[in-house]
């Protein structure tokens, strides 16, 4: 598409057209050499730090791993212990709840932010820059910030604000009922500005003439949102949703930093359970089986999304 306007400028090259095929055959070996030389760094790194670990993980998932006694092949036993382990099933439930609330919450808040901050004024640009800060900050730092905001005594920062409106004091991360919700709020705070940027880009692409003619027809703001804005944003929203859902399956850092899975396992997610099994209890076989299961689910979801997106694009 972009090459179309430059075509006329490249006219002289066309006069020499007959030569390239011959040259190409002659330099075929050089061509292939260049192809692979440029691919080697990526291939070596991917092999060592992605594919060997992946294969090793699949292998370990079939063994009872014992550091000094030698590994014993146990077939699918590790998978059976993951799937029958009550704590893993609890963790699965928490992962799904956390993923859903974070994904949907971040999308809704991001949408509201985008609607509020749409426009070309300098002040709006400044606001958007400021609001984007949570996305840029490392998750571990975000976790520390919120641990302080969530300080569970009555004079903690958020509890102070809650007391202004007559609520309160909440235990936040320390309460078994509130901990998972508190983590979800951090995820929404962290993810919403990112979605805002995507939705703002979608909003900018909507033809203003549609709004104008809707205005002439006497449509309310709500109708305008319902019948013009939302349909136009649908492709972006679908992709944002699925990517966030896939990513939330392996959310680890925020949970680990905020609660470490506690209190009383109320925020244990798949990843933290796997981590504590593998690194703290040294049950590497079972932990690897859990990792492989997660990988399979992620792969299926990703391939499914890609197929959906491709079919959408063809239509």
């Amino acid at each position, binding site marked *: 598409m972009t090459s179309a306007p430059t075509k006329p400028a490249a006219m002289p090259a066309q006069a020499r057209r007959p030569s390239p095929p011959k040259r190409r055959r002659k330099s075929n070996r050089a061509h*292939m050499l*260049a192809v692979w030389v440029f691919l080697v*760094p990526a291939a070596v*790194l991917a092999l060592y730090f992605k594919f060997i*670990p992946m294969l090793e993980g699949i292998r370990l998932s079939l063994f009872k791993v014992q550091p000094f006694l030698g590994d014993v092949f146990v077939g699918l036993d590790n998978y059976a212990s993951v799937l029958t382990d009550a704590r893993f099933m609890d963790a699965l439930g928490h992962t799904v709840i956390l993923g859903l609330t974070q994904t949907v919450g971040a999308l809704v808040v991001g949408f509201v932010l985008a609607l509020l901050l749409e426009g070309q004024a300098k002040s709006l640009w400044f*606001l958007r820059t400021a*609001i984007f800060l949570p996305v840029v*900050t490392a998750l571990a730092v975000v976790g520390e910030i919120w641990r302080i905001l969530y300080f569970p005594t009555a004079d903690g*920062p958020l509890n102070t604000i809650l007391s202004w409106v007559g609520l309160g004091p909440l235990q936040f991360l320390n309460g078994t009922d509130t901990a998972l919700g508190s983590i979800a709020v951090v995820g929404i705070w962290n993810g919403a500005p990112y979605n805002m940027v995507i939705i703002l880009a979608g909003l900018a692409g909507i033809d203003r003439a549609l709004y104008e003619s809707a205005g002439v027809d006497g449509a309310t703001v709500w109708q305008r949102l319902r019948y013009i804005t939302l349909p136009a944003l649908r492709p972006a929203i679908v992709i944002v949703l699925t990517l966030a859902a896939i990513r939330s399956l392996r959310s680890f850092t925020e949970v680990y930093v905020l609660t470490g899975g506690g209190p009383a396992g109320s925020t244990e997610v798949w990843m933290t359970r796997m981590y504590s099994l593998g690194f703290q209890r040294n049950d590497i076989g079972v932990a690897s089986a859990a990792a492989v299961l997660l990988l399979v689910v992620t792969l299926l979801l990703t391939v499914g999304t890609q197929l959906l997106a491709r079919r959408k694009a063809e239509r």
Partner: protein
Amino acid sequence: MSTTTTRTPARTKRPSSSSRFDSALGWSPGFSVNMLLRIVLCILVFCIFALPFAAIISGAFDRNSSPTEITLLPKAFTLANFEAASQQGLWSYLLNSLVIAGGGLLLQMTVSVFAAYSLSRKKFRGQAFILLLVLLTMMLPEEIIGIPLSLVLGDLPLLGVSLRGTVLAVILPVGIWGFSIFIMSEFMKEIPAEIEEAARLDGVGEFRMLFAIILPLCKPALGVIGIFGFMMVWDQYLLPLIAANDPSDYTLTVALSVLRNDTTVGPGVLLAGAVMAMIPSLLVYLFLQRSMIRGITAGATKG
């Protein structure tokens, strides 16, 4: 045809930039109740998303900062927290972080540019398969392969070298990232073939082709993979954790949890550490903001 399509948006844009059809909610431009509502909402949103940062920075510079007393400006300004932080070795953690971020980013960008050049400017058998593998690396983040990765880092297959405890244990794994390869090759694909053909007739070799012809045309994409790569490396948590031999190998972000659990240091020191961990990413963001927005929107529209 192209002239008409470019002219129409320009014509409709000018009057609409000050009309109520400018935004989806139809914010009215003049002063009104509507405008007042918008200002109030904006202030609220600003408080929720940006003020925590002000509180953290203020707490880091406050002599008697505590989690129960958050202020937007330090009551008793002091640098003591940062001095205490340096006694806790925070500068060396920061140095670890900076070495890893610099080295990892440089490696990642080089690897991505090379791979993207091969994948976008060349045609060869097995290309689709290689692309599939690149996609697969995106689905194998450190979290999922963490356990076997830690074993590999302790004893590299075939080489028999242990990377654990060295910065290379973090730098090498972050060197491969499918996302930046994809962004880069999408961008390189847009460069017209005629430019390359002309250079080839002048006898330009592969490396000069990449560095003198293709890469200068990819500056915006370099910005995009630069900022996203930096954020990816700076955000690493599990990898520095499993790559470390002992806490002195930690990066600054991981070291924050050590500070938090150390009862001898006050919250002010933890906040000082948080501020130190925030500043590099803030600077990168402010300098490369435009690239960041471009990268996000490209990622969203391309999937």
